[in-house]
C-alpha cells in the first residue's frame, strides 16, 4: 500500500530574539504551537501525537525536557517523541512526525522544535571536556572555518563571496517579521568591515544565538481537505548520517549530504534541481556554507557554487532564491533552526511567506545539517499533492 500523502496545514513561529525573558520554556513552545493550530484551524483535541526536537539538553540545562513540556504541548494522554540529531534536529523532527502520518499510525501530528539559548550558554554546551574531544575547537566556528578555507582553496572562490551571502540574508530578514536580526542600516561595506572571528569567517557572517520555537501541523489527505489555507505537500524527505571523523570524510562536501539530496529528489521526481526547485531554505550558519551547499545539494557543479552566489542567482529576486526568510544567519534558535527551514519552505509553496514570498514558488527545499557536518535532513514540499 502506498504511503499516505502528508500535508503541512499549520505553521507557527515565535518572534525570535536574543532573550525571551517574558516566557518560560513551556510558554515559548506553547506560543509556536498555538500559532500553528490557529493557522490550521484546529484545536488541541485534533492532535493525535506530538513530536518535538531540540539540540543538546545542555543548552537549557533540562534533561529530556519533553517530560516537562508534555503539559504545555497538550500531549497528556497522547504519544510524545523527542528527537535529537544535533543541528539537523529540527528537520529530523519534522520527518519523524511526517512518517507517523505517512505510515497511517496517526492522522494529525503536532511537531515542534525550540531552543531558549538565553537560559544557558551554547559555547559552554558545545565545549566538550577532555578526554572526549581535543580542546582546540573554539565552538562551532572554530570547527567549520578550516573547511570553509578548504572550499576556497579547492574552488578558487574569491574571498568576497561570504560577505555577499551575509548581506543578502540579512536584507531578506528585514522582510521577515519573525527573524531575529533586523539590521536596518546594513550595507555591504559594513558586512565586509566586520572583525575576523575565525579566518575566513567574519563576525557579520555568523549566526546569532536566539530564543525561539517553530511548530507545524502535519496531516493526511482528509485533514488537508479540511484545511482553511492551502497546504504544502511533502514530496520527499530523507535523513543521512556519517561518522564525525574518518579518513575518507570530505568536510567540504560530505557524502551524506549528497546522498540525502539524491534520495529526496528521487522521491520527488526531480532530475534537475536547479531548474525544478523554486526556492531553497538552506542551513547556512556561516555564510560560506551557501556556495558549499549549492554544490553539495546538486544546484551547481563542483567548484561552481560560488559563481551562482556572485551572479545574484540566490537573491530573493534571483533565479534560485536561497533563504528568502533570512536563514540561520539571521535567526538561530539552534534546535529550531532546521524546522524553520522546513517550515519556511512550506510557507513558500503555500504562498504565505508575506514580504519574503518568492513569486510563483511551487516547489521548495528545506535543508538542515548538524554535528561535524555529518547529519543531514531534508524535505521537498510542493503546492500540489504528490501523484501516484
Amino acid at each position, binding site marked *: 500500500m*502506498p*504511503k499516505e500523502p502528508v500535508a503541512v496545514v499549520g505553521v507557527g513561529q515565535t518572534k525570535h530574539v536574543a532573550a525571551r525573558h517574558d516566557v*518560560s*520554556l513551556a510558554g515559548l513552545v506553547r506560543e509556536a504551537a498555538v500559532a500553528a493550530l490557529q493557522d490550521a484551524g484546529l484545536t488541541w483535541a485534533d492532535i493525535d501525537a506530538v513530536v518535538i526536537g531540540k*539540540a*543538546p*539538553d*545542555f*543548552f*537549557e*540545562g*533540562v*534533561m*529530556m*525536557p*519533553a*517530560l*516537562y513540556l*508534555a*503539559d504545555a504541548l497538550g500531549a*497528556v*494522554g*497522547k*504519544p*510524545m*517523541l*523527542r*528527537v*535529537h*540529531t*544535533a543541528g539537523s534536529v529540527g528537520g529530523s523532527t519534522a*520527518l*519523524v512526525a511526517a*512518517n*507517523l502520518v*505517512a*505510515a497511517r*499510525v496517526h492522522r494529525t501530528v503536532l511537531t515542534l522544535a525550540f531552543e531558549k539559548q538565553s537560559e544557558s550558554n551554547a559555547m559552554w*554546551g*558545545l565545549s*566538550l*571536556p577532555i578526554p*572526549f574531544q581535543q580542546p582546540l575547537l573554539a565552538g562551532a566556528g572554530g570547527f567549520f572555518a578550516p573547511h570553509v578555507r578548504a572550499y576556497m582553496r579547492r574552488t578558487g572562490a574569491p574571498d568576497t563571496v561570504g560577505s555577499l551571502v551575509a548581506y543578502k540574508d540579512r536584507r531578506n530578514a528585514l522582510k521577515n517579521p519573525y527573524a531575529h536580526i533586523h539590521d536596518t542600516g546594513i550595507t555591504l561595506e559594513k558586512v565586509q568591515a566586520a572583525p575576523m572571528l575565525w579566518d575566513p569567517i567574519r563576525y557579520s557572517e555568523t549566526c546569532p544565538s536566539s530564543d525561539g520555537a517553530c511548530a507545524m501541523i502535519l496531516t493526511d489527505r482528509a485533514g488537508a481537505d479540511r484545511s482553511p489555507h492551502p497546504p504544502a505537500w511533502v514530496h520527499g524527505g530523507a*535523513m*543521512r*548520517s*556519517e*561518522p*564525525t571523523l*574518518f579518513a*575518507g*570524510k570530505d568536510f567540504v562536501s560530505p*557524502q*551524506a549530504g549528497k*546522498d*540525502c539530496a539524491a534520495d529526496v529528489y528521487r522521491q520527488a521526481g526531480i532530475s534537475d534541481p536547479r531548474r525544478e526547485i523554486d526556492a531553497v531554505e538552506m542551513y547556512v550558519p556561516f555564510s560560506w556554507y551557501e556556495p558549499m551547499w549549492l554544490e553539495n545539494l546538486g544546484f551547481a557543479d563542483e567548484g561552481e557554487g560560488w559563481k551562482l552566489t556572485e551572479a545574484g542567482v540566490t537573491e530573493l529576486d534571483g533565479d534560485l532564491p536561497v533563504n528568502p526568510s533570512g536563514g540561520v544567519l539571521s535567526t538561530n534558535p539552534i534546535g529550531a533552526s532546521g524546522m524553520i527551514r522546513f517550515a519556511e519552505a512550506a510557507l513558500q509553496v503555500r504562498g504565505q511567506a508575506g514580504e519574503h514570498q518568492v513569486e510563483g514558488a511551487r516547489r521548495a527545499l528545506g535543508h538542515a545539517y548538524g*554535528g*561535524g557536518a*555529518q*547529519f543531514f535532513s531534508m524535505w521537498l514540499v510542493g503546492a500540489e499533492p504528490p501523484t501516484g
Partner: protein
Amino acid sequence: MRDVAIVAFAQTDHLRRTDELSEVEMLMPVLHQVLDATGLRTSDIGFTCSGSSDYLAGRAFSFTMALDGVGAHPPISESHVEMDGAWALYEAWVKIQTGEADTALVYAYGKSSPGQVRDVLTRQLDPYYTAPLWPDSVALAALQAQALIDAGDTDEAALAAIATRSRTDASDNPHAQLSGAVPAGDYLVQPLRTGDCPPIGDGAAAVILAAGDTARALCARPAWIRGIDHRIEAHGLGVRELTESPSTRLAAERAGVFDRPVDTAELHAPFTSQEVVLRKALGLGDEVTVNPSGGALAANPLMAAGLIRLGEAAARIHRGESDRALAHATSGPCLQQNLVAVLEGESAHA
C-alpha cells in the same frame, strides 16, 4: 500495517562501573552480536535509530560519537531519540511501516557511573519550580510507594517479595548486575529499602527489526510486534494519581494487550512498588510470568533498560518459551511516560 518482528537482540553484561570503556567500546560488541546473528552488515540495514541521554555522559552530542560504532560509511539513514531505546525502536517500527525500510538496527546505551545518577535525574524535572529543590528519583519513587501502601494496594512485605522473586529469577540471566538472594536492606528513602531499588550501572543493548518475509529469513522464530503504542502523562506529580498508570493502560489498549491473554510480561519497573502499579494497569494475574530476566531490579542501565525489556520478551519468543509476551518501557518520574508492545511467535498468530 506491515508485519514487523524483532529478529535479534543482544545486551552487555551490566556493571556498576565501566571506567575502562568508552560508550563506543561498550556498544560495539552488542552491535556486532545482532549483526552476526542475522548475517546482516551495516550497509544492508534500511534504517538505524538510537536512544541515549547526553546528561548521563556529561557532555553534549554524546550520540554522535556512538554512531562511529555503527560504521556509518557509506552514509546511512539514521536518527536518534533523546529517550529510552524502546522509543527508538518505535521510531524504527514507524519507518518500516512507511515502506521506506525493511530492516532496522536499534540500539541504546547509558553509562550512569560517571555521575551521581540520583542527582542527574533531578535535572529532568520542571526546571523552574521542582528541579531547584533537587528531589531525587528514589525520593519520588518513595512518594509513589507510600501512596500505594496508604491506598492498601501493597505493603512492605509484598514489595520485598517482588525484589526476592526478581533477583532470584536473575540468577539465570548472565547479564544481570544483581542476582541471587539480595537482602531487603535498610531504608533508602522510607518506605523503600535498598532491595526495592534498582542497581546503578552501565550497559547497552541492540535489536534488529525486520518486516515480513525478511524477518522469516533472518530468524527461525521471529517475535512479531502485533501492537505497539506509547502515552505520556502530566509532568507534575501533584496532578497525577500516583497509584494508577493511565498512560500504561491506554498504551496497552492501543497495542491490543487485552485482546488475548499474554503468558509473559517484561515490565520496566525500576522500583518494586512500580511493578504493583503496572500489574494493576495491565491487569496481569499470577498466571503471567513477570520479569523472568529479573527486570530492572536486576539491571537498570538508563536509556537501555526499556529496550532490554523488548529484547528479553522477544528472546523468550525466539527460544520458544513464550507465544505471546508483553513488553513495557517507562520514562520520567513515577512512570510518567510508558510504552507497551505485544510480541508473538508465528504459531500464536495463526
